[in-house]
């Protein structure tokens, strides 16, 4: 890449939008935004052909800043809105930017059923373990025992592993990385965009101002260091003992397989009726 990364990003931002953005200093959302844009730039996607859909939450504010066909929908419903767009215009590149609460709590049903259909939508989950926009309530991915404004004594809920959830529901591309591993994240996002079928990239992210502060995770820089130190490539992670695994999480591509894609299957159904002998029946 000859270009200075910032200049690439500026090409895709909506300059008439009243910046600055709503994200806190140290938030990972900006890193993910930059990564998504660089992936799109390198894949040379036509921006008229890109639909970026989001639900509600900090991460879901992303579409307003970028110059694509953008839809900031309702809490949890981004994937269902995206399904409508993709179904109607299958040639469009449809992506969903969502958070952990948006995608797996209120939107969990849409998440698993889109995965089951294997509809060609890329879901990028900015997974920061917390409901940031509403001020720090625990989410389905908040680690058990961690504090949030609604778990002042420590969270007693068990957590969702978003990748396992996606795999179980039938997603055909599932990867995890972190906001620290921005280069790797770009690679996975590119693979997810290029994958024909339902793809999920779970990006472990930092919310230093709320989650970090409530759980004494230190500075934004320290949280980045934790991402580096606590995550391991899948192969290395698998070699750990069960005890060691408790303090680490795996990064990498868990699933990448080809299965019939939903809009293509529907197109085949429509083709059935385009044969002349079938008409007028």
């Amino acid at each position: 890449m000859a270009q200075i990364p910032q200049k690439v990003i500026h090409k895709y931002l909506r300059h008439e939008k009243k910046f600055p953005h709503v994200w806190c200093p140290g938030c990972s959302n900006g890193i993910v935004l930059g990564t998504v844009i660089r992936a799109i730039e390198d894949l040379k996607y036509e921006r008229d052909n890109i639909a970026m859909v989001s639900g509600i939450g900090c991460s879901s504010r992303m579409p307003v800043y970028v110059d694509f066909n953008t839809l900031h929908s309702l809490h949890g419903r981004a994937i269902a809105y995206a399904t409508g767009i993709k179904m109607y215009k299958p040639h469009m590149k449809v992506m969903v930017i969502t958070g952990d609460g948006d995608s797996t709590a209120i939107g969990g049903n849409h998440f698993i059923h889109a995965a089951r259909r294997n509809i060609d939508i890329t879901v990028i989950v900015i997974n920061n373990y917390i409901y940031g926009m509403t001020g720090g309530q625990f989410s389905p991915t908040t680690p058990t025992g961690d504090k949030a404004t609604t778990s002042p004594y420590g969270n007693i809920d068990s957590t969702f592993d978003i990748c396992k959830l996606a795999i179980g529901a039938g997603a055909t591309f599932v990867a995890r990385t972190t906001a620290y591993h921005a280069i790797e994240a770009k690679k996975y996002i590119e693979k997810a965009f290029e994958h024909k079928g339902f793809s999920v990239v779970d990006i472990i992210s930092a919310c230093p101002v709320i989650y970090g502060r409530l759980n004494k995770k230190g500075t934004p820089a320290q949280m980045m260091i934790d991402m580096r130190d606590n995550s391991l490539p899948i192969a290395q992670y698998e070699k750990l003992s069960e005890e060691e695994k408790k303090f680490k999480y795996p990064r990498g591509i868990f699933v990448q397989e080809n299965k019939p894609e939903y809009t293509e299957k529907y197109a085949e159904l429509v083709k059935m009726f385009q044969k002349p002998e079938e008409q007028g029946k």
Partner: protein
Amino acid sequence: MAKNKIKETSSKKQEMVLMQGNEAIALGALAAGVDFFAGYPITPSTEIAEILSEELPKKGGKFIQMEDEIASISAIIGASLAGAKAMTATSGPGFSLMQEGIGFAKMAEVPCVVVNVMRGGPSTGLPTSPSQSDIMQARWGNHGDTPAIVLYPNSVLESYELTIRAFNLAEKYRTCVVLLSDEVLGHMREAVVLPDLEKVKIINRIKPTIPPEWYKHYKNNPKYISPLASYGEGYRFHVTGLAHDERGFPTNRADEIETLMERLKNKILHHIDDLVQIESYMMEDATRAIFAAGISSRAAKEAVNILRKAGRRVGMLRPLTIWPFPDDAVRKYLFDMKTIIVAELNQGQLSRELKRVMGGVWNYSKQKKRKIVELQKNNGEIITPEEIVNLFREVR
């Protein structure tokens, strides 16, 4: 006698067929050009989804059965933004689930049609029995304050005609239009002659012709409605359920929010004449009247015929457009009535509205002892002509 604007659509003779109400809605949608349907099974609306699942693929249209009603309304909004003529169909419980999405479609001004074949409620209620208890939910169901366009036919043919009209109004006014039906109407079969397709008026949304960089999809104008581009066609616009400026970007500025909210209100309220349809039956010399909609108006009309034969000067006023409520027509036709029976399958949703409109004028003429009599049924059965006739005899 029957003052029904949409009857002009029927002209050239087509074949007479026996058709079900829900089937007429599905065929009306196809005639209007529906090319996207997302839905979730629910009695008594399911036939609409079943028919469209069979017919849409034949035309290259899209049908998808979603995981729930929330997903269904979401998918049709997404598809509409991509350019689809989109629709979903449901009944009470599903209609409740769709309310947040309906509010989004109104706020973001995304054309779509939601059919609610009303059944008994609240809650699971009476899945296979009729009611008219979502009259108010259709108006006030979503949170936040904005007007609604809601239509309610009373026959199989009219189910067809008003479905087309629902699409036309959704596209014209860039909003979510609700078409009400009820279990009896939805499952009833009648002999119908569908209008000649070529004579049916179809309205499509206005698309922008200006360059994308000048495009403001929420710009105020004398009609209060701006053209709507489709995703993927060069206009990379932003859509949000947040209060937004004329380019669709979130705003907290009171002046911008006020402009938006006033426009959303005015685009309906300044077009009442275009939106409101009523049928007045035997009202010319009537001194008493029945006010009813949908299936209840069938009993009302029969009751008028029975009472007329007995020499009673009774008429019927029926709203085809439930919302916006036909205030002017109610004042015009019902102002001089000695008695008005409001017949409905709920606990007084239409009569409450009628009283709102009549309140002022009727208080003024209180000394004349005029009255509104409520005939309500809430048990899964429909109001019969006899019940109305008997009530007239009681209250005379």
